[in-house]
């Protein structure tokens, strides 16, 4: 277990460095600078600003300085919001995006797993067929279509819930965004769990358990549940990537001040440090989620570790 963690940590360093470097190069090769769109500055003022953000140095020196800062956990000052550092902006935006993502994942598991069980128990019966069709629908309808339709239904025509906004994370402001974000993951988890359960229930040890007279509920929860969770757990890695990118759209639709909005805004405004900071945090989150998924997998199936 510890060895895996160390491996992952060592793996994370080159990946993060690569992400940082690619983004840095993209930002610097791109036409247009952070202060181009503003009204024409006098030469002295422009030089002053450039000096403040160290834009007057050679690019390699800037890169080195930035790398040094990041290693100390400082993502630098924001270009677009002069009074705030990128650390402060992310410290404000990340909890919002994280709340959204974690809740959506929980909702997806809480609804997807039972639906998968139901579908597997009623395999090839109308219930299963109906759940299957709904799942394909859930996977296929993009969240930027379903989200606005939900707003139209539950906030405009039938005003139960607010149209958008964060409002300190009140529960009624969270319902629609979380459901919209969770829907495709509910569908994926249902399909994965149904397939895995069906495969597991055909194995000889289940027949033995039946022959011993175990109740169906006992077989399902005590015997088949854990091994059938394996595909769902390995889906959690890619799912986290989907959640992070999905939340960019969700934040746009529901007007939530999360990290995704900073990213799109920052990119449009050439806010070098903000964009770099967000991309780094996202890459770090992705690595962390994948590691957590791997650890869970090994905990559920200790054989997975021995094979290597």
């Amino acid at each position, binding site marked *: 277990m510890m060895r895996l963690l160390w491996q992952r940590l060592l793996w994370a360093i*080159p*990946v993060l460095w*690569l*992400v940082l470097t*690619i*983004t840095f190069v*993209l*930002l610097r*090769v*791109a*036409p*247009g600078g952070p202060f181009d769109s503003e009204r024409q500055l006098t030469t002295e003022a422009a030089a002053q600003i450039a000096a403040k953000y160290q834009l007057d140095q050679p690019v390699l020196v800037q890169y080195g300085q930035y790398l040094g800062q990041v290693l100390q956990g400082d993502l630098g000052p924001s270009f677009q919001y002069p009074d705030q550092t990128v650390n402060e902006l992310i410290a404000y935006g990340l909890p919002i995006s994280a709340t959204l993502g974690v809740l959506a994942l929980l909702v997806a598991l809480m609804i997807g797993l039972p639906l998968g069980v139901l579908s597997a128990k009623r395999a090839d019966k109308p219930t299963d067929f109906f759940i299957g069709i709904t799942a*394909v*629908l859930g*996977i*296929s*309808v*993009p969240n*930027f*279509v379903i989200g*606005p*339709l939900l*707003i*139209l239904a539950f906030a*405009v025509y039938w005003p139960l819930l607010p149209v958008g906004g964060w409002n300190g994370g009140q529960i009624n402001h969270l319902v629609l965004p979380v459901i919209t974000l969770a829907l495709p993951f509910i569908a994926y988890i249902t399909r994965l769990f149904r397939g895995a359960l069906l495969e597991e229930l055909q194995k000889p040890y289940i027949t033995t358990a039946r022959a011993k007279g175990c109740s169906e509920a006992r077989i399902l929860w005590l015997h088949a549940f854990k091994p059938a969770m394996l595909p769902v757990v390995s889906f959690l890695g890619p799912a986290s*990537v989907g959640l*992070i*990118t999905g939340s*960019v*759209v969700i934040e*746009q*639709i529901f007007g939530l001040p999360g990290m995704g909005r900073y*990213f*799109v805004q920052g*990119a*449009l405004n050439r806010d070098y440090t903000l*964009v770099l900071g*967000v*991309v780094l945090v*996202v*890459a770090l989150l*992705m*690595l962390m989620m*994948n590691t957590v998924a791997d650890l869970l997998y090994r905990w559920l199936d200790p054989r997975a570790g021995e094979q290597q």
Partner: protein
Amino acid sequence: MKIKLALSWLIIMSLWVIIGPWLSSQQPDFIHWDAMAQAPDSQFWFGTDVMGRDLYVRTLLGGRLSLLVALVATCMSLLIGVSYGLLSGYLGGRTDRFMMRFLDVLYALPFLFLVILLLVFFGQHMILLFIAIGGYIWLDTARIVRGQTLVLKKQAYVEAAQAMGQSTTRILSLHILPNLRGVVIVYATLTIPQVILIESFISFLGLGVQEPNTSWGTLVSEGVDNLQTAPWSLWIPGAFLSLTLMAFNLLGDGLRDYWDPKRLRPR
């Protein structure tokens, strides 16, 4: 059943998208000052948007573009993915390990974010969009193809060909590539909806397809902005988009069950 349903929608939709715009007398860019945000009627079959442009023609033209992006990017992804997977799997050994490690690194990058940056910084050219999406989506194809190649190269007829001293190129193109057909078709079918989704996702954020062109993602995005005044401008393009994605997903699922790649499992 699933396959038939999916195929019939895809055929109808493709024909509609290709021929449909000529059936209407409306122009995609013409602004009807007297008919802004008009609900669907006999003159404007899908209504008009808030700028008074006919949505029927725009939806179909948007479909053309979405499908075009999907086809081009999928072809690119197949080209890169299949050759990468083929080489990695067939050559094996250190080359294989190195190539797979490289894939792992690419997998770890927050790609969609980099694609967004690329599009923001270098202008929203169509070609850049193709390259950005095609360059990202081939990873899965490469992995699958490698896995299958590993199995295939152990088959007796490949070993026979090797023993006869046939060149690597000849073995790859004559003995291995044809046997990958099933897997490649399934994964291509499953790649297309992903590409359409990514394209519309990027266009939704306002970074993809630009005026005067339009795509389903752009249309949905405009529809969201005018949700209350013209809800049809959201749900009509949204329905086209969703139905098409669903049809490709169903088709891919159906074909996968039909060919069942589980027959060939790596090792």
